[in-house]
């Protein structure tokens, strides 16, 4: 595929870049909730160590797509899924791929911060303890590293034993990110991570997202287009379960190539 693929004649999506090194490959992904289709034949590649944002109106399938990336739909019998998702070349639905291991490699953070009812330290250590075989000393190191990576360490280092619920919403969200980071994921999925936060906490999360991309690949779903414009390197615009336009954030927000994209990001009626 060339770097600049021309528009397909059948009105298919415009994808105006081709990641040099790609972390996730989604190929012909369709998903339906019972009879209701949510994603239609989605094909796109998520570049490694970059921030990719999925934007689109409510019900466009962006969260559904995000959840498919770490198989959160597995337990829902209503969901029918076809197509392929590859993580670093490995099919995530292959029999040898364990869901627990997949979810360690592909971490997820949700809209509402959901710390466990335990201390700050125990929250971050939770995943590692679950894996087992780790010494206290090592655990201390990883907890500190994770809290530093999520820019929370300075605020909590003197009260690691106090309850996570005593933290503010923004701190809780960063704690949840630290908990996810502690198991060293390769991908971090963020579903509206800042929509319940005040503007300052939001900026801290955004700063964190920017800093984390040297360590891992980030995929962000957001309703806040300015947020997508601020933090992402690439943006995919979805509508009614279809990929409409996918390109560099720079281009998409200054000169989108399709009227559907233009109308959405500028708030126009179709």
């Amino acid at each position: 595929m060339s770097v600049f693929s021309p528009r397909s004649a059948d009105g298919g999506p415009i994808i105006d870049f081709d990641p040099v090194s790609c972390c996730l490959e989604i190929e012909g992904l369709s998903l339906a909730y019972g009879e209701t289709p949510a994603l239609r034949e989605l094909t796109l590649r998520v570049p490694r160590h970059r921030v990719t944002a999925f934007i689109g109106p409510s019900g466009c399938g962006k969260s559904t797509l995000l959840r498919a990336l770490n198989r959160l739909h597995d337990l829902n019998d209503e969901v029918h899924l076809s197509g392929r998702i590859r993580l670093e070349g490995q099919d995530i639905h292959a029999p040898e791929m364990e869901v627990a291991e997949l979810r360690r490699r592909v971490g997820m953070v949700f809209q509402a911060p959901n710390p466990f009812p335990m201390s700050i330290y125990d929250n971050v250590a939770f995943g590692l303890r679950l894996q087992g075989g780790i010494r206290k000393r090592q655990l201390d190191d990883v907890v500190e590293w994770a809290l530093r990576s999520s820019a929370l360490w300075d605020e909590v280092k003197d009260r690691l034993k106090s309850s996570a619920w005593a933290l503010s919403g923004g701190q809780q969200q960063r704690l949840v990110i630290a908990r996810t980071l502690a198991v060293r994921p390769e991908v971090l999925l963020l579903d509206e991570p800042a929509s319940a936060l005040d503007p300052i906490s939001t900026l801290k999360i955004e700063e964190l997202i920017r800093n984390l991309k040297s360590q891992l690949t980030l995929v962000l779903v957001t309703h806040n287009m300015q947020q997508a414009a601020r933090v992402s390197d690439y943006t995919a615009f979805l509508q009614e379960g279809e990929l409409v336009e996918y390109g560099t954030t720079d281009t998409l927000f200054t000169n989108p190539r399709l009227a559907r994209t233009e109308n959405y990001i500028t708030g126009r009626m179709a």
Partner: protein
Amino acid sequence: MDITSDIHSRHISRQFNQELEELKTHLMAMGGLVEKQIQEAVAALLEGDSELARRVVENDRAVNDMQIKIDEECTQVLARRQPAASDLRLVLAVIRAASDLERIGDEASKIARNAGDLIEGDNGNRGFVEVRMLSEHVRRMVRDALTSFARFDTELALQLVHEDEVVDEEYRSAMRSLMTFMMEDARSISPILSLMWILRALERIGDHANNLAEYVVYLVKGLDIRHTDPEDLDKQAITRKD
């Protein structure tokens, strides 16, 4: 994607439509005033009307005020609406265009000031043919630039980019003939210098009109053609209707 001139009236927020429409309207009003300034500055010279020349110099303040007002409105839109895509390009194009129109206003005022000196000095009609020709040409360019802005017409804008080369040639040829006058008669040096300043100002107006045309291409196509040799422009990409 391509945009058409009615695109800024289709937002869900009507207030936003209005704000963007106002930007365009105010820019056009400023353009109208600037056009009048050029026309009157040149008329003051050709008709020997020193009172008119004085008025043009005075009116430059109104042009400056309009630029400040437009800049303020653009700042408000940027701060409050965080425009994207074609909306963002419109705001940027308006800011840039207002700045070029203000400079055209300065050039018109320069012409009027030099015209005032020439009228007092009784220079005869030397150089008037050249001034008339060049001024008509650049006035048409400014008018066309504003029209292309109002209509989002990249084809017309592209013509202007080439027009500017013709103006530059006319300017050089006018300078040559004025230099001949200077060599023939040393007493004419001072009035001829004033005329040269006027021609220079007209040539600069052509450059600013050319800039305006470039902003239209940016606004409509998202292509930045500044500092590009006109020969190297991808004409198809600029005029193609997507």
